[in-house]
């Protein structure tokens, strides 16, 4: 039997403190998310044709995509870390970031669909950007299915990390490169107004930038709680 290079370290460390946000970060997350939800509906927004009040979706839709991409990036980094360190903890973190990122992805998809209904007139249009978003969610669902089909945790960690890295790189190509090559209805593509042109309003900026930070920190906070819960469960069964 070939030498199992990682078996010594895999179950050694189950450190609860591996993902621990300082209290002021949680406070910041709380304040920014609350301010996003309140101010997002209250502040004056520029009156634009067709968009009208739907421009407020910027605070919710765009920010949840930012949070999703950020969490998937963390998951990608932890998958690389797992391949180099062999620690089971890194793999678990990668899994948790993927799961939380998918929640934000679904939130972004739903808010986007509602917005599309009132501006484009349909919940779904055949658009490269929309299809890219849906397919990348499918790829991450496949990651979850792949994880569940293993019983041996060492193989599970290694194989799913490999898939995660592969999927993330191709997702980047799909979401960021391909839509720029074809025309798209989506704001920011093909001459449609992006948020650089209608976001010039300074009050909107004041809400939008903290909102990005807020949703990202909220995602990290959820991941932390999930991680600690799973770590406690594992320690209990030991």
């Amino acid at each position, binding site marked *: 039997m*070939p030498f*199992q*290079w990682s078996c010594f370290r895999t179950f050694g460390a189950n450190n609860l403190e591996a993902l621990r946000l300082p209290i002021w970060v949680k406070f910041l997350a709380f304040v920014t998310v609350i301010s996003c939800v309140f101010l997002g509906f209250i502040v004056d927004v520029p009156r634009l044709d067709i968009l009208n009040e739907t421009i407020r979706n910027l605070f919710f839709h765009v920010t949840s995509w930012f949070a999703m991409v950020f969490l998937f990036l963390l998951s990608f980094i932890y998958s690389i870390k797992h*391949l180099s360190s062999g620690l089971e903890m890194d793999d678990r973190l990668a899994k948790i970031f993927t799961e939380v990122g998918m929640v934000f992805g679904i939130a972004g998809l739903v808010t986007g669909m509602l917005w599309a209904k009132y501006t484009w007139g349909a919940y779904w249009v055949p658009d*490269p950007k929309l*299809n890219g978003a849906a*397919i*990348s969610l*499918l*790829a991450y669902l*496949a990651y979850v*299915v*792949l994880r569940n*089909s*293993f019983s041996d945790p060492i*193989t599970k960690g*290694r*194989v799913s*990390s*490999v*898939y995660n*890295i*592969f*999927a993330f*790189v*191709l997702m980047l*190509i*799909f979401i960021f*490169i*391909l839509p720029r*090559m*074809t025309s798209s209805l989506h704001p920011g593509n093909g001459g449609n107004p992006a948020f650089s042109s209608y976001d010039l309003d300074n009050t909107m900026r004041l809400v939008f930038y903290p909102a990005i930070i807020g949703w990202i920190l909220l995602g990290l906070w959820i991941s932390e709680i999930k991680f600690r819960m799973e770590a406690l469960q594992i320690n209990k069964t030991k």
Partner: protein
Amino acid sequence: MKQVLAVIFRNLKSDFRDPNSIFGSLLFLISSLFVCYISINRIASIPTWVALFWIIVIFASFNAVAKSFVQETRDKMIYIYSLMSPAQFIIGKMLYNGLLLILMSLIAILIYSGLFEMAIGNLPMLLIGILLGSACIGMILSLLSSIASKASGNLTLMAILGLPIMLPLILTATKFTKNAVDGLDWSIQYKYLIVLIGLNIVCGALSVVLFPYLWRE
């Protein structure tokens, strides 16, 4: 280099010693082409013509490459482990699967354009698109087949894993081949050609980097 060639020839030999599987996938391809012909008869629009072709090719290639790693038993893998580095092994596998799929898709386009008549604007461009597309499908499926074989691989898992990942490639290849059938000029096609070649390079490089982690057990 010697080891890479050895992998290709070993696969070739084992496929011709037991030609059931390779002719099986070829037969799958031809019969699905024929099923499409019987149920659709003729296709008027170019986008549909191209899309149907790629759908047939993709599912046939899943069928053809799925067995690529399942047939490698544990003992065989350990023996190969002592002979060469993982990079050489995966490069050999990718080249073999890529060539196999290129051959299959060339057969497919021959039969397909015979069954469904279509005036093709730029034949060399279409062939280049098919060549690059199926080579990249072969590379992606080689890595995925080794992932699926770790998870007591079946075809369903491979399709779930593979289809979302292959979509950027499928989209670009479809657009490229559609423009080729339309007979558009090269100047419009360059950006798609660059993306296709880039995808080939990215998938190949990722497989070479990642395969050593799958291989070790």
